[in-house]
């Protein structure tokens, strides 16, 4: 696969940034991605959404007092949740430098907190914004701030963690899933960590310690003794020698390799620790060094990349982002709502016989310019004003050269590799007498693209 296209897909969601990477070079592309500004404007659909504990209580009570209250509350929740998903997918499609959003999806799947448990869309927004604002910052800061989001505290039952009656869930996942990973801490660290997190409850402006409920006795955490709170605990965790590898392995899996070699995990992990967990120098080293390697086909595309790339290739710009969110949800990637705290497994788990069939059926429909039925959108609580039943499909290609040249153009942009058999198939679709200037050329190329996007080779980057 053409290198700049490969990295446009890995550092973003489609081939859109290929030209930009080619023009700027990978190092400057990264610099520009880091300095790309964050939009801090509260989206309009959250203006009236409850934010403080009192507002949330009043909101719930409001639905209790009316007929069919439960049903109406569920409907409102569905509408707002999908407004949130659509808002996020819009960012992925529209940002000139999508690397930040790519990293937000990674962190979102690392610091998992599922909206169906805490059911406050504003908390999902604030959690998401913490990830966005700190995506290119320091991992320690990010961890500290995430522990102070209402979404996280609620999701991992820390509202039940109080002095004298500790609940270990957040303490356990902090070590097992968010930082060190299994084998690098003891059950005692989890038990003691629960003390340090006791009394950290949901509050009006993010989670805060309740002085009546927090622990007051010193405890031992990784060999250090004191009456630690969450910030100090994070510092202690990251001062452990083994701290960088768990996260490094996940970052390598997210961006480049379904099966990262352990030597690379150690190599980049050591550097991450050396850089005191600053993301920018780490990502710069990782991407500039990996950019020069021949690694196409080392990773299965997640549903987001699959769909956004497909839409871009077919020049479909007017699909409603909520329908994209619904598609990826069906493919096992429900934004804001992972099935459990480990998050989406990724890698091979993106594809089963069922899911693969679904991808191919969708590809067929999109190539025919057919959208899903409108009811799919209205079922998400959207009035359906921004819906198109049909698309005007135009795959991009340079009208020059013979059939082999056009095939090479598309193949290098779409497929991680192509063997003899595939090449034969391609030349059966664009035959030796293909004329790029003829009226039927566009249709023939569309048929070729349709075939290519259903091959296994299209599923890999």
């Amino acid at each position, binding site marked *: 696969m053409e290198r700049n296209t490969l990295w446009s897909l890995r550092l973003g969601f489609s081939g859109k940034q290929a030209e930009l990477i080619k023009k700027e070079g990978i190092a400057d592309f990264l610099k520009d991605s880091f300095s790309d500004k964050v939009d801090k404007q509260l989206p309009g659909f959250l203006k009236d959404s409850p934010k403080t504990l009192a507002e949330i209580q009043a909101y719930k009570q409001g639905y209790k007092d009316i007929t069919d209250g439960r049903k109406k509350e569920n409907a409102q929740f569905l509408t707002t949740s999908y407004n949130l998903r659509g808002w996020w997918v819009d960012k992925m499609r529209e940002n000139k430098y999508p690397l930040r959003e790519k990293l937000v999806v990674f962190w979102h799947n690392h610091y998992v907190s599922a909206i169906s448990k805490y059911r406050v869309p504003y908390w999902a927004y604030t959690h998401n914004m913490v990830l966005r604002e700190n995506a290119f910052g320091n991992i320690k800061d990010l961890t500290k701030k995430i522990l102070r989001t209402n979404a996280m505290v609620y999701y991992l*039952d820390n509202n*039940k963690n109080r002095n004298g*009656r*500790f*609940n*270990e*869930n957040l303490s*356990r996942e902090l070590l*097992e899933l968010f930082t060190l990973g*299994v084998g690098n801490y003891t*059950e005692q660290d989890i038990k003691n960590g629960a003390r340090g997190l006791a009394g950290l409850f949901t509050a009006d402006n993010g989670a805060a310690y309740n002085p009546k409920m927090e622990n007051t006795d010193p405890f031992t955490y990784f060999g250090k003794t004191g009456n630690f709170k969450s910030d100090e605990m994070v510092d202690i965790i990251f001062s452990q020698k083994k701290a960088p590898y768990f996260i490094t392995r996940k970052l390598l899996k997210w961006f480049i390799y*379904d*099966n990262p070699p352990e030597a690379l995990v150690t190599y980049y992990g050591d550097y991450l620790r050396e850089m005191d967990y600053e993301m920018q120098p780490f990502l710069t080293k990782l991407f500039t060094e990996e950019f020069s390697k021949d690694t196409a*086909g*080392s*990773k*299965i595309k997640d549903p987001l990349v699959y769909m956004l790339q497909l839409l871009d290739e077919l020049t479909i710009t007017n699909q409603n982002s909520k329908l994209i969110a619904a598609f990826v949800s069906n493919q*096992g990637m429900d934004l804001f709502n992972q*099935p*459990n705290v*480990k998050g989406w*497994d990724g890698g*091979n*788990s993106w*594809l*089963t*016989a*069922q*899911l*693969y*069939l679904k991808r191919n059926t969708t590809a067929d429909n999109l190539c025919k310019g057919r959208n899903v039925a409108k009811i799919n959108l209205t079922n998400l609580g959207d009035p359906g004003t921004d819906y198109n039943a049909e698309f005007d499909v135009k795959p991009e290609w340079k009208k020059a050269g013979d059939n082999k040249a056009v095939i090479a153009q598309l193949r290098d942009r779409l497929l*991680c*590799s192509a*063997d003899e*058999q595939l090449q034969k198939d391609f030349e059966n679709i664009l035959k030796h007498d293909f004329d790029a200037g003829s009226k039927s050329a566009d249709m023939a190329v569309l048929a070729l693209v349709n075939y290519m996007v259903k091959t*296994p*080779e299209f*599923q*890999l980057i």
Partner: protein
Amino acid sequence: MPDFLYSFALQENLTAGDSCLVFIQLNGGNDGLNTFIPFQDDLYYHYRPNIAISKNDVISAGQGMAFHPMLKGLAEIQQKGHLTVLQNVGYPEPNRSHFRSAEIWQTASNATQYLSEGWLGRFLDVQCKDHEPTAGINLDTIDSLALKGKEPNALTIKDPSKMISKGSAAGVKLSGNPQLDFVRKIANSATEGSDLISKAIQKSPAAPASYPKSGLSRNLEWIAKLIKGGLNSKTYYTSLNGFDSHENQLSMQKNRFTDLSDAIYAFYNDMVAAKKLDEVTLVIFSEFGRRVKDNGSGTDHGTAAPMFIIGGGNKGKIIGKNPNLANLDNGDLIHETDFRSVYAALLKDKFSFDPKQIGISNTALQGIFK
């Protein structure tokens, strides 16, 4: 067949009477003590002031143990003599991480051993002569590690009605890229397996009564259809989420157990009506139990727990001693039976298969089957 090229063979229509194993994995670590309850043990009430089930509510008592009131279906099956309870099942050096412990159960490894293939996957690798894409069927949205083998002898399907038949088997060429090979095999399974599954669904007689409307019920209904339709898979696998009861355990178990019990009872009746109960062994388990002492409204991760076996010509007994609440390991139950000895019993009794072939050296647990 040359090394670099293999084809998926169409499965022969095997004679009736072939055994199959059906697994229901309860995800999250189901609390065994509140499932099969030591209601005559004072320590149970002592340790669980907040979540113990009252003596007056438990059902189907025997040997000092009884079922949670919402497990009416299991209780009925036990009354009919078709349910075996295996008590205190676990393994040495128990792991309390969901994912690691589930991995241990699914790969039948030691607590410190890391295997990349599932025990059923390895079994099918040996048992299937040619590649049989429907020898193992996983009714779920994601693959189960338990069925993962070197060859693709198992399919994961979310909704069998949506599998579209698209022509006959094609050879799959192996490239130098393992990820590409994986996707190619999936791509092939997507077409190959669906022929056989469609056929089985069409042939399958109706169930005696309609199944309840839950995810697990739907999955078991499909499994029943495929069994009755003669697909002849050796193993079926499915799961039920929601057992990680750190808080609100009472309401959670009430809710989950209703789904679990109703789904299993419908499946059981379906198998009885189809006269297939003796060929079908249903196994229910979870990756670990929970701590004995409650935390106020729930329990934290624990260790040993019961396993349940329905059908397959089992003797309907309670195997193993009642949980010993006086002798705990730092607050956790101590296992009595290694889960791998249960696996060994299943493989030996149902398939005359020597479990050592797949690295299980435990002696098969005696007394489960007639």
